[in-house]
């Protein structure tokens, strides 16, 4: 059995402590000697091998540093000490000696050393990972040139009767042109962009991907060299992302190649820089605005009421944000006056937001803030725990320290040795903490839902999968461990160095004096923090369980949803309704399919769109008062297929179609709100947009049960269902209920669609349950993290309670023995010890309850149907903490009851 590669590698690393001159002369010899000696020990036993490797490693570091700074061959401390060695050399040798003695002490107490290292490594590891994520999402600058000069230029809607801040929405192209043509703007350039899903064909299988439609100044605004060509995109050109270029063309230059975007041939003009995914963070292609009529819609650029663009500008030299904001107000006024605006309760205004502000999603910021604060509290507990352990460690060595002092050791020297122990522990914990942080970073990326990292609407750069735990984060984590460790051990060290020799010698090995309450105070602090965390986690768990129990109004089991879009101008798109029906017909005959239906969006996702109700029966609403209603395009089997109950009237039938009178079905909420008299069936309903066969009015033929389309917090709103044959569209979502695993049906569905329309890709396959789980994503990710932190906090505080009570029992063993000799029963002594642990833990719990009361308010908006002062979460957490403390106190307290009075008195 020869020496292991790891041991040899570590030894080579340790040899770096030697000066290069010596290393080049003796390095190989030393490594060979180590290998031979290590092999010999390993052949005796693996343990002996490990022991030798550790000793040799430390010896090499020490000897190497000693050689660098101490050249003599005489005894250290000999007559030439002051002459030969300079101050720096002396320092290094002393540090080496201190570290060596610290190593020897810690080797004798492996349990203490391992516990301290594990606690601190865990604490800093978690914090390192989270602060890294926090920095990437919120603190690191956006990957564009001078991002602080970028300004989001919003067209916003201002309620004329309220003082609420204006709500940003999007520009239509004609309205954007007013902004683009405004002269003398404080912005040197402005651009508009929008995210669109496109279908790419002409290179392998058809694929659906995200593109940004951009005006010509887009790249100039972002301060990027546009692409290799450098010129503006012409109407038949497209720019593609580096990732897409690699996947389609490998290493060959794609410039000049062609492919079809939504069935229209475009030439690839160039490739964006690697990693650049545009302002939406997800674009794989950039399409010039001029190509919109060809690729997306012939009339979209002329439609002043179609709001779909966002605008961004770059402040010019000398231009200020305030100037630009004032200029935007006047642009907004011109837009408002220049186009028809039907809603008298609102007006359009122009506003400006700093881009760095806009990219930060308020909800995500709050959640990350809460999670980071929780991680910070865990670190605090870890440090307090470390202080408790170190305090006990020092107290147990009180006699040894007193002996050293009595023999003439300087107090400074005692403090230095203890400090060396802490340094050794903290730096080891730091190194392991870096590993923990790296692993935790990967876990964060996996656990964190994508949506969580989003900035506000259409502004997103941070792809969580790209979060890297790099060198700066590793260095920061390492330093955090070292500083935190040393800081929290300072107090016990200072106390130890002030040990009163006479008192300590008299007290024998019994540790600190009776009056010493440092440990209990730290324990109480830990319990208080642990309780705050437990209550926070309890509130989130309670909230999550309520969210998970929300009734969505339909049966979501075994449902698969897939989407497709028929290409404009294709044969299928001439009669999309017939195509959808034909496809659904084929799907229903597939083996393993229970039912198949369609809608324009997946259930649980969102409404197809929302509009306003103008008239319901005899009731009409004036402008500004019209109730909002969600619209859904469905086929006649929809309600039966999803298990949505028909409450009255009839469902759509195969006879209803484009030629028959327009009909609608409403949900229960719409029926109750719009028709308070209860007379719904047969009544006309008029909505804000034309829905059925070009009509905005249709008769209500049925009422169905409520389905929750918005988030649970928003609740059910009024909804109207329209038959897809009366309002045909090219986009659709097919919803299939499977007998078994829904995703197993996907290949069959693809094959069926390929038979009918080979050029149309089937996209976005998801199970409805996964959509539901994704909706809980943020809450469940935060809950999981907080619960993990709380569990860690409870564990740490329990070990501290245990340690402190055990120490108290050890310290007062003599007193207890005497009491028992004088007639006290064992149960009384146990009770006394239990009371000691419980009093301090309860004190901590009271402070924790107060702390939670104030701190949990920051979580209010993250909670669903639970208040931040929920009595159950508070009382359950407090009871849990006190019980855990009781259990932790019981083990050492039981030992107190087993004290043998006779033996204790003999020992006196």
């Amino acid at each position, binding site marked *: 059995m020869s020496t292991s590669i790891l041991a040899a590698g570590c030894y080579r690393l*340790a*040899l770096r402590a*030697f000066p290069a001159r*010596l290393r080049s*002369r*003796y390095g190989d*010899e*030393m490594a*060979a*000697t*180590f290998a*031979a*000696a290590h092999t010999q020990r390993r052949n005796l036993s693996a343990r002996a091998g490990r022991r030798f490797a550790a*000793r*040799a490693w430390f*010896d*090499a*570091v*020490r*000897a*190497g540093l*000693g*050689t660098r700074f101490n*050249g*003599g*061959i*005489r*005894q*250290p401390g*000999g007559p030439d000490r002051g002459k030969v060695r300079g101050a720096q050399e002396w320092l290094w040798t002393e540090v080496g000696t201190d570290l060596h003695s610290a190593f020897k002490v810690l080797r004798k107490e492996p349990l203490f050393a391992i516990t301290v290292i594990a606690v601190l490594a865990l604490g800093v590891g978690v914090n390192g990972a989270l602060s890294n994520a926090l920095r990437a999402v919120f603190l690191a600058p956006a990957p564009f040139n001078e991002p602080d000069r970028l300004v989001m230029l919003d067209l916003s809607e201002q309620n004329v009767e309220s003082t609420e801040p204006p709500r940003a929405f999007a520009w239509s192209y004609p309205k954007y042109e007013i902004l683009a043509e405004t002269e003398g703007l404080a912005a040197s350039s402005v651009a508009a962009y929008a995210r669109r899903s496109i279908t790419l064909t002409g290179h392998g299988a058809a694929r659906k991907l995200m593109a940004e439609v951009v005006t010509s100044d887009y790249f100039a605004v972002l301060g990027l060299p546009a692409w290799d060509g450098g010129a503006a995109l012409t109407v038949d050109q497209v720019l593609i992302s580096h990732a897409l270029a690699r996947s389609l063309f490998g290493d060959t230059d794609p410039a000049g190649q062609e492919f079809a975007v939504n069935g229209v041939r475009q030439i690839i003009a160039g490739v964006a820089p690697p990693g650049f995914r545009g302002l939406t963070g997800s674009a794989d292609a950039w399409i010039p605005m001029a190509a919109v009529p060809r690729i997306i819609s012939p009339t979209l650029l002329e439609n002043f009421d179609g709001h779909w663009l966002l605008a961004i500008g770059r402040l010019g030299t000398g231009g200020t944000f305030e100037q630009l904001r004032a200029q935007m107000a006047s642009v907004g006024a011109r837009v408002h006056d220049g186009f028809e605006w039907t809603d008298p309760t609102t007006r359009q205004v122009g506003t400006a937001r700093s881009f760095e502000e806009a990219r930060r999603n308020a909800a995500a910021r709050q959640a990350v803030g809460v999670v980071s604060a929780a991680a910070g509290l865990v670190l605090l507990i870890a440090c307090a725990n470390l202080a408790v352990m170190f305090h006990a460690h020092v107290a147990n060595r009180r006699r040894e320290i007193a002996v050293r002092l009595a023999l003439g050791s300087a107090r400074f020297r005692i403090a230095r040795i203890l400090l060396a122990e802490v340094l050794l522990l903290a730096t080891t914990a730091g190194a392991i903490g870096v590993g923990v942080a790296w692993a935790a970073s990967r876990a964060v990326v996996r656990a964190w839902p994508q949506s969580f990292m989003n900035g506000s609407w259409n502004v997103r750069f941070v792809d969580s999968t790209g979060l890297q735990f790099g060198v700066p984060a590793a260095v920061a984590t390492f330093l955090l461990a070292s500083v935190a460790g040393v800081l929290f051990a300072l107090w016990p060290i200072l106390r130890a160095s002030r040990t009163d020799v006479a008192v300590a010698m008299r007290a024998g090995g019994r540790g600190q004096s009776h009056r010493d309450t440092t440990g209990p105070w730290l324990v109480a602090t830990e319990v208080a923090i642990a309780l705050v965390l437990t209550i926070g986690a309890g509130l989130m768990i309670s909230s999550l369980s309520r969210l998970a129990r929300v009734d969505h109004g339909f049966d979501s089991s075994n449902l698969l949803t897939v989407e497709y879009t028929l290409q404009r101008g294709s044969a299928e798109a001439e009669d999309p309704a017939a195509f959808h029906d034909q496809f659904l017909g084929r799907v229903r005959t597939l083996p393993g399919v229970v039912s198949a239906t369609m809608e324009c969006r997946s259930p649980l996702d969102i409404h197809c769109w929302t509009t306003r109700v103008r008239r319901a029966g005899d009731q009409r609403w004036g402008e500004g008062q019209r109730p909002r209603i969600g619209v859904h395009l469905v086929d006649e089997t929809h309600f039966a297929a999803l298990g949505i109950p028909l409450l009255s009237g009839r469902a759509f039938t195969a006879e209803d179609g484009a030629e028959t009178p327009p009909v609608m079905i409403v949900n229960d909420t719409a029926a109750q709100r719009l028709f308070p008299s209860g007379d719904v069936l047969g009544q006309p309903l008029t909505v804000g947009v034309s829905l059925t066969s070009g009509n905005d009015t249709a008769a209500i033929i049925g009422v169905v049960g409520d389905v929750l389309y918005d988030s649970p917090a928003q609740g059910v709103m009024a909804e109207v269902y329209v038959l897809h044959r009366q309002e045909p569209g090219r986009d659709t979502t097919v919803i299939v209920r499977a007998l078994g695993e829904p995703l197993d049906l996907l290949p069959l569905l693809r094959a069926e669609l390929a038979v009918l329309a080979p050029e149309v890709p089937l996209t976005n396959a998801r199970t409805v349950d996964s959509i539901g789980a994704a909706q809980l994503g943020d809450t469940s990710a935060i809950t999981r993290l907080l619960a993990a932190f709380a569990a860690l906090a409870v564990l740490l505080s329990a070990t501290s309670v245990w340690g402190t009570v055990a120490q108290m029992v050890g310290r007062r063993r003599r007193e207890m023995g005497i009491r028992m000799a004088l007639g006290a029963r064992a149960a009384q002594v146990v009770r006394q010890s239990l009371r000691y642990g419980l009093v301090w833990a309860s004190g901590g719990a009271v402070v924790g309850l107060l702390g939670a009361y104030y701190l949990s308010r920051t979580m209010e908006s993250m909670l669903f149907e639970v208040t931040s002062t929920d009595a159950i979460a508070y009382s359950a957490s407090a009871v849990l903490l006190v019980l855990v403390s009781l259990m932790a106190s019981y083990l050492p307290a039981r030992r107190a009851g087993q004290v043998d009075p006779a033996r204790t008195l003999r020992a006196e």
Partner: protein
Amino acid sequence: MNAAARELLPLSPPVFHVLLALGDSAMHGYAMMQAFEAKTEGADTLLPGTLYATIARMVDAELIDECDPPANASDRRRRYYRVTDLGRATVAAESERLSRLLRIARAENMVPAGSSDPSA
């Protein structure tokens, strides 16, 4: 020679150990480790880092020097060392110094009973 040797006293333990390990033979580093362990019956160990740092200093101080591998060398690729005359004088001076101290300790009854007397 003796004056030069006395200049170097007291020797640090690793230097003394290396001189004792080498004795009259030529050895490489690992052999020195083994010899030292054997001579102290495993009570003390010389670890490679300390050993070579010491060797380097002793070569500089001319207490030992590098030599050709002996005829019966187990591994001819290693560096071999032997004690110089100065080294021999130094180890003798150090041993004498220590014996003197030991005698004083004995006279003061500070040496535990049962310890063998090296001068005996």
